[in-house]
């Protein structure tokens, strides 16, 4: 009991960076502090790529930070600690093991005796509502039941700290809600054999619904942008005005952080290869603009409401909104999205005109498009290999983002008929008629 002053986990000045040969390091986490005490649920909230999952893995002892200090119960962490168990987004169940065998996995690693193992796994299985499924294989279960197995597997080792990496994001809305409620109920009744929970999520409502404390992450590099205490008592009501206000506030925080960075960059940055493009399809752009323009939004929508109406996760809606704002089709303001005149014109136009408006927007706001087209035009054969652009992108971002950005620019450029792309040869090129500048 005298140990309660020592936090379960403390992370100081944590930095995770990957070395890049050409230019600066690729920083995933920068100067992050985190302290976890017994008896609290803390949520790490942020967009994908904000480094929150990386931080979770550092706390789990799976990943060694580039620099910084990680202490587990006051002692430096050197590997997966015995008192920590993890629940995975993808469940990470072993398909060749039955429910019971999956649950016993962690106990086997600890060399717990067979009788003990069976007793404890039985206990965890019953606690989490899986009784009767002991002998089933994961593939026979629904998603919700699978994540219950994931939970039971983590709880059976009686961890002090339960780590959850987007545990409900692979589930449908109703199933996720049921699992969340069950978990919180067990937590409030003191039935969970854990002292503290750290949950990573991109779902704002989930964070406000479950956590006592929320750390909001900003992206590129990942930093803790805000820390909020959630003052509501469990069980929480989503429709409570105070609850809604907090969700709105967090939306505001998450959109505010990102917007100015993009604009200044687009205006001032000379380097067209320094920007990650979100993989947003042109149909999605058109669809959102049409929705935004018409009833009931009439050009302006509250992001949480829009997300709920379209059944989008924050993680899907925010990149979409940012892309629209980058292209000059919409503006993000304090958790609202407002259509611009260009956006309205695009929504009203026919197919061919849309392509022209889109091409115009790309030329103005996406310097990468111009850079690629420029190289193609310089070449006598009007062809350019994709690999050179990929390399240039990789100087500024991770290979995954470079690939994503390249894919996006290809799809946009094709739609706007700015260039063609030959997948077989991995080459950019120009359309025949484009080259000859014919009458149409």
């Amino acid at each position: 009991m005298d140990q309660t002053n020592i936090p379960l986990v403390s992370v100081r000045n944590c930095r995770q960076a990957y070395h890049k040969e050409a230019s600066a390091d690729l920083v995933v986490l920068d100067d992050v502090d985190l302290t976890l005490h017994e008896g609290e649920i803390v949520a790490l909230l942020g967009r994908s790529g904000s480094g929150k999952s990386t931080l979770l893995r550092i706390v789990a002892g799976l990943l060694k930070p580039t620099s910084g200090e990680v202490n587990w119960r006051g002692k430096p962490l050197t590997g997966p600690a015995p008192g920590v168990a993890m629940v995975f987004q993808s469940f990470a169940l072993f398909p060749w093991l039955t429910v019971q065998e999956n649950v016993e996995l962690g106990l086997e690693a600890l060399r717990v005796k067979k009788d003990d193992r069976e007793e404890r796994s039985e206990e965890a299985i019953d606690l989490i509502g899986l009784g009767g499924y002991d002998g089933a294989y994961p593939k026979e279960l629904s998603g919700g039941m699978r994540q219950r197995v994931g939970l039971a597997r983590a709880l059976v080792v009686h961890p002090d700290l339960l780590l959850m990496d987007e545990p409900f994001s692979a589930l449908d809305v109703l199933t996720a809600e049921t699992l969340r409620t069950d978990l919180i109920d067990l937590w409030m009744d003191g039935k969970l054999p854990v002292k503290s929970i750290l949950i990573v999520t991109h779902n704002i409502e989930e964070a406000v619904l479950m956590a006592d404390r929320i750390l909001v992450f900003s992206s590129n590099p990942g930093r803790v942008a805000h820390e909020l205490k959630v003052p509501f008592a469990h069980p929480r009501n989503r429709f409570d005005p105070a609850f809604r206000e907090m969700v709105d506030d967090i939306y505001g925080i998450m959109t505010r952080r990102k917007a100015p960075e993009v604009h200044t960059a687009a205006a001032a940055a000379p380097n067209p290869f320094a920007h990650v493009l979100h993989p947003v399809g042109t149909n999605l752009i058109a669809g959102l603009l049409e929705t935004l323009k018409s009833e009931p939004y009439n050009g302006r929508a509250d992001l949480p409401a829009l997300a709920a109406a379209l059944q989008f996760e924050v993680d899907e809606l925010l990149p979409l909104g940012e892309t629209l704002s980058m292209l000059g089709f919409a503006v993000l303001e304090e958790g609202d999205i407002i259509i611009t005149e260009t956006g309205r014109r695009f929504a009203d136009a026919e197919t061919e005109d849309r392509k022209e408006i889109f091409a115009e927007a790309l030329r103005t706001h996406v310097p990468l498009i111009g850079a690629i087209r420029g190289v193609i035009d310089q070449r006598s054969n009007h062809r350019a290999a994709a690999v050179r652009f990929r390399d240039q992108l990789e100087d500024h971002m991770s290979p995954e983002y470079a690939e994503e950005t390249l894919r996006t620019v290809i799809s946009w450029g094709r739609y706007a008929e700015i260039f063609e792309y030959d997948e077989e040869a991995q080459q950019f090129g120009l359309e025949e008629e484009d080259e000859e500048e014919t009458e149409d």
Partner: protein
Amino acid sequence: MKNYTPPALAGHRMPNRFDGAAMLMVMGLLIALVEVGRSTIATPIAQIQNTPIHLDPAWLPYYALRSTARMFAALFFSLVFTFTYATLAAKSRRAGQVLIPILDILQSVPILGFLTFTTVFFLHLFPGQVMGAELASVFVIFTSQAWNMAFSFYQSLTTLPADLQEASRSFRLSPWQRFWKLDVPFAMPGLVWNTMLSMSGGWFFVVASEAVTVGNTQFTLPGIGSYVAVALAKEDLHAIIYAIIAMLVVILLYDQLIFRPLVAWSGKFRFETTAAVSGPEPWMLKLLRRTALFRAIGEVIGGAFGRVFRLRLSLRQPGQVDETSEPSRIVDGIWYLLIAAIAVYAAWQIVAYVSGTLHWRDLGTALLMGIYTAIRVAVLMAIASLVWVPIGVWLGLRPKATRIAQPVAQFLAAFPANLLFPPFVLFIVMFHLNADIWLTPLMLIGTQWYLLFNVIAGAAAFPGDMKEAVANFNIHGLLWWRKVMIPGILPYYITGAITASGGAWNASIVAEVASWGTHTLTAHGLGAYIAQATNNGDTPRVVLGVVVMSCFVILFNRILWRPLYAYAVRRTTLG
């Protein structure tokens, strides 16, 4: 039906400097093997007691049992090799850089060409004991099985799902526990499938490796292969027919008791999130799963294994992964230097060995012979494709026919084709036919079935909605083949074709020279070249022939099959 990428096709590795080093190392190894073998040929080795082989069919069950035992001994060694070699290659970046190219080259080396030397080598290890000859035979079977099993295991290890790896680490499984809880189960479906293909291919080598002639002495181990060899020498057609029947029975038992139950059982380990609709459970597996006695036995065995697999066998606690640390350049440098040194040493040995006895002329001859054999393989593949693709498509589009034809083709692929040679040879001798042409089909007798059953699988997997679309647009005739069916089955066809053509090269060593009693038929080709050099004890030319053949096989794989396969997969799959 299951379809796994054959090892030679998977891994879109570009050839790099490690391939060169690997080639040199393998060649050096072969020369060393031959040298050791040759130096012992001179020493008297006649003390070995040759058990006489009886042509009385009553002996056949016993011989079949001995042959089968050899097969399983080889399988055991192959598994040990797979679990160690592939694990090392997958877990250590530096080891993998060398081990995988070596494996790639080894699987293209026609080990049949070295039969004599490996036999002598093992006889030398156990002078005067039958053990040596047994081991030699097992070794040959091993070399026919191990490579693709190791490749399959390696591929599985490199594609382990990241979340399961993290889960194993976060629940603090020791490396030993993880190997049996994650690595092996995940690799199981591919490994079982490749093991079964290996076993099927292995019967050919069992038959070929039991009776080996070294100089004037013939070693015969009790087994079906020796039985056939003796029958050939005595021109006893009845005995050969008995042997074929015995082999059919053995393969039927193997197919029903082992192959099918194992493949069906391994489906449990398939990494998929939905329960797939699987075919009917093989009767043997049903028996094992539903019978109380077998279940009890299974639980005892499983429990014992489980206890061993649960041991930690590790003192160290698992640590963190340091993703940001770069591999040490100094250690890398030392490692590359070491590899280079070994490669240079091997190259020097090869030059020393070759320059004493061989001229450029010999290389020319070997290359020319290689081209002859290449033409044979190409023509055969073309003919076999023309025959089997339409038949395979016809069968594959009819589910009922597929259910019957697929197992039959797999069964035929396992049948050792060398047992069918004698009737063929007899036919050629009787009608005085041209050996250059008529010996050729022998090369593909055994391996054409791979073509057939892969085409069947491809046609059977053709999506139903596309079939309906094709019918809706009334596409038929040549257009149907060109735009619909051929692209649809292309990856499957190539999978089958590479197995078939690779097998044909290997078979050429026994197929281009055939004998019936005192008649010996010889065709022009690299296989005959190697076989004759072996008979003459002309070791440099054996090595030369084998190396040239390996090069042909590797070139075919790299220049033709691998790009074609990559193209087919890229172009004929959505997304």
